[in-house]
């Protein structure tokens, strides 16, 4: 970077809040995906005003930028390509307002997801989207990726819970999208912005819908002899008109990894367990739990355990949410294929994923949001072995192809980033992609916001090839 740029950035955020030495920048050259790319500089911002001033300078110089929260992104969305400057958002983590009568809160985006609900808990409220990484991921990243989580089945994803967002556009203009009312005027730019992976601008503050904590919660663990039985239970529950808050499944390999690392009480011998949680009024909950137990038995799942108390419930969730971390003990690396299929296609998708694993000789551990039809097969490998790595990339793409063929899509909640650019044609035509490009142009005509992500680059034939080039220069431990 030029000395002039460094000086200009330091004039805004202070001497210590710009990193531009290679050794410092290497901390910011990766996220939870497999590739690496060294940013031009890292700027720690504390206010929307600073973000605006930084983006104005970068626009003057024609330099791209990437907002960064906690770097837990699984699709390479936080990578700084094209010599982009990273804006580190973690210090913007304040709660600005909690408005209980209106059931919303205003927070800066650097706040950890879990902290939001922890802060709300004494007030009897919570924030519904609960990605498994919630201890380590920030709201800004959740907004960028339209993050999901186990409770999406009943309560929806991040975009269903963001009422408004303050955005700094490339060029530095500050604009509020949405607001404190549920149905603001005009195009739903809030909904369009959520899930845009930092390619339309930088969110700095958000107004979130908050929910009253349920009066009662009941957590059941169905112990399945096969993945298919688990899938059938899910279908039976939905068909019976029951609407649990979560329907989460993990397979035997994952169960054992979880038990090895944290002993949460999952039965090691089970082919799969299905974590079913009911919430709502206490009236009728016992009967609903009994109905689910009967449905399980009718679907060939004889054993259903009920969490006896809050400790047991927390243990089960600790296991589910710690699944990815536990898998790390099975192999140096894993790659998550985040495909989604219509719920009824889940058994077929799982069977075909199993076949892909056999064909490529790759061990697969599976975690999935069964209620949403969202698969997370974790393909285990060792990134130090280039052949292994190549094999896993090819197998991952086949998994996504299966999801697309079954009427689903190639990313349920982890985003396109650089990882899945090549998979976009599996679900979109050129016209579909061109229309999405129009939105990018309208928000960011100069293409400075997080370049090389979400949509293929147009014009010079780069894009997927470009990301492959990025991959070539990287040798990275993933899933850290």
């Amino acid at each position: 970077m030029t000395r002039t740029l460094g000086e200009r950035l330091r004039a805004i955020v202070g001497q210590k809040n710009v990193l531009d030495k290679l050794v410092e920048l290497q901390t910011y050259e990766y996220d939870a995906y497999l590739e690496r790319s060294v940013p031009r500089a890292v700027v720690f911002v504390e206010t929307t005003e600073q973000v605006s001033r930084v983006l104005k300078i970068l626009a003057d110089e024609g330099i791209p930028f990437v907002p960064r929260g906690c770097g837990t992104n699984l699709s390479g969305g936080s990578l700084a390509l094209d010599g982009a400057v990273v804006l580190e958002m973690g210090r913007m983590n304040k709660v600005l307002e909690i408005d209980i009568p209106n059931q919303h809160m205003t927070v800066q985006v650097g706040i950890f997801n879990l902290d939001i609900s922890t802060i709300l808990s004494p007030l009897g409220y919570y924030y519904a989207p609960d990605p498994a990484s919630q201890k380590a991921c920030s709201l800004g990243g959740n907004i960028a990726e339209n993050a999901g989580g186990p409770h999406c089945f009943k309560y929806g994803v991040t975009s269903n819970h963001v009422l408004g967002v303050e955005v700094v556009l490339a060029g530095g203009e500050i604009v509020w999208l949405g607001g404190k009312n549920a149905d603001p005027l005009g195009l739903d730019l809030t909904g369009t912005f959520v899930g845009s992976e930092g390619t339309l601008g930088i969110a700095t503050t958000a107004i979130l819908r908050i929910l009253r904590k349920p009066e009662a919660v009941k957590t059941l663990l169905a112990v399945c002899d096969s993945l298919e039985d688990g899938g059938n239970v899910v279908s039976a529950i939905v068909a019976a008109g029951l609407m649990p808050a979560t329907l989460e499944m993990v397979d035997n390999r994952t169960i054992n990894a979880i038990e090895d690392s944290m002993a949460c009480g999952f039965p090691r011998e089970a082919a799969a367990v299905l974590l079913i949680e009911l919430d709502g009024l206490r009236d009728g909950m016992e009967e609903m739990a009994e109905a689910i137990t009967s449905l399980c038995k009718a679907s060939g799942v004889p054993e259903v355990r009920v969490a006896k108390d809050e400790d047991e419930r927390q243990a089960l969730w600790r296991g589910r949410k710690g699944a990815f971390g536990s898998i790390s003990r099975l192999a140096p690396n894993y790659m998550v294929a985040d495909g989604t299929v219509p719920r009824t296609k889940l058994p077929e998708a799982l069977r075909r994923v199993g076949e892909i694993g056999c064909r490529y000789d790759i061990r697969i551990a599976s975690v999935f949001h069964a209620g949403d039809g969202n698969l997370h097969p974790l393909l285990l490998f060792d990134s130090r072995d280039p052949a292994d790595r190549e094999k896993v990339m090819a197998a991952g793409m086949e998994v996504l192809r299966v999801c697309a063929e079954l009427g689903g899509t190639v990313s349920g909640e982890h985003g396109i980033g650089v990882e899945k650019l090549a998979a976009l044609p599996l679900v979109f035509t050129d016209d579909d992609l061109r229309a999405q490009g129009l939105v990018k142009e309208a928000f960011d005509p100069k293409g400075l916001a997080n370049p090389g992500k979400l949509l293929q680059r147009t014009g010079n034939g780069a894009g997927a090839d470009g990301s492959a080039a990025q991959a070539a220069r990287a040798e990275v431990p993933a899933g850290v």
Partner: protein
Amino acid sequence: MSSEITIRGLSPLTESCPADEAQLAELLTLAGAGGAACYIAGGLTKQDWGPAPARIDRLVSTAGLSGCSDVDPDNLTLSAAPGTTVAEARERAHAVDRILPLDPGHPGRATIGGVVATGDQGARAAGYGGLRDLVLGVRATLADGSAVKFGGRTMKNVTGYDMTKLFVGSFGILGVITEATFRLLPRFDSQAVAILPLPSLDEAKASVARIIASYLQPLALEVISADALPPDFASSTAKLPGGRAATGAPAAGGRPLLLAGFSGHRAAVDRSIKEVTEAHPGVAAQVLRDDAAETLYEHLAASGPEAGGDRLGLRASVPISRALDMVAAAQTCAASNGLSVGFRAGAARGRVDLLLATRDGSGPNTDAWFASVLSHMRAQAVSMGGSLFVTGGAALLPGGYDAWGDVGPSLAIMKRIKERFDPTGILNPGRFVGGI
């Protein structure tokens, strides 16, 4: 063919009713080449919303694009063509024991395309959520004739931009929706609505605040003026199957009625109704159960307050705790201007429908005077952190009135999106915010 329909006083030169996407694409391509302004028409139930179009050369009806292409009860999804009426699509879901959670006004005429394009959602939005929460995917034909699809049939989808959200509520300015896929709900085990005639708006406000702060999860939480309903409302609902006849007098005009609806497990519904009614020991509550509750919602939707003539229709969206403040502001405004006011306030969503009418043609009754009423009510909504638009009675207002209100700085982005999707400006020109 030439059109006999008049939209807001404008007569289209031609009327077309494409039978498939190919015909629609050809029609839009031709319109684009000739710069012909197209008005996209479904059931025309919301033609009075917002401003009149700047011009209409060609009326494009979606009536030829009709039917449910896919109903998948196990995956809880339904896909329907734009000209399908909401009532028909709901019936298709009902037939497979599912609920299509759409509750717009006039569902017998309102179409899938129109409801997605306007985002209209009525009383049951409290439980169902808004259209933006329910549409999983859309297909659309753009101004250049290209057919595009976004989203899909899965609950979760972060593949590319969330273009579905961009199209929901876009009033046809970006393209013609040719199919929408919705999330379905399982059928309720049970449902019920408590109807409570309350002595005052203050009491209604306290009551809804209590319900919202409680563990109860209402399907509908409406506070409505008795005169926003047909005069025989109280007696007719009392006669509905399962309805408990009101012991007191029917709600007098001006007294608010609280409608609190719940759904789910029967025990949970019973407990909810009990809590709500016991909080008002002196009030004679009617409780409508199951089919009778359904009939009430149908009645509400079908009998929506119709603006026009001497009645100005307004819809506000405000933070939820301010919904009844908005009603109070309307009552004050009406009283000081010699107007009557009918209202329906979705207290869990912050949606407030107002109908302001002259009493027997009295009052100053000039367009400038109605314009000042509009701007006063809008200022109230804005001061509460919300917005307000005109849903009917444009004839009462002076030319060039602002039907939508100020969108703020994000309007510039909306304009840039419109320019890129529809560079020749043929799709519903002038119909949307900021003159888009």
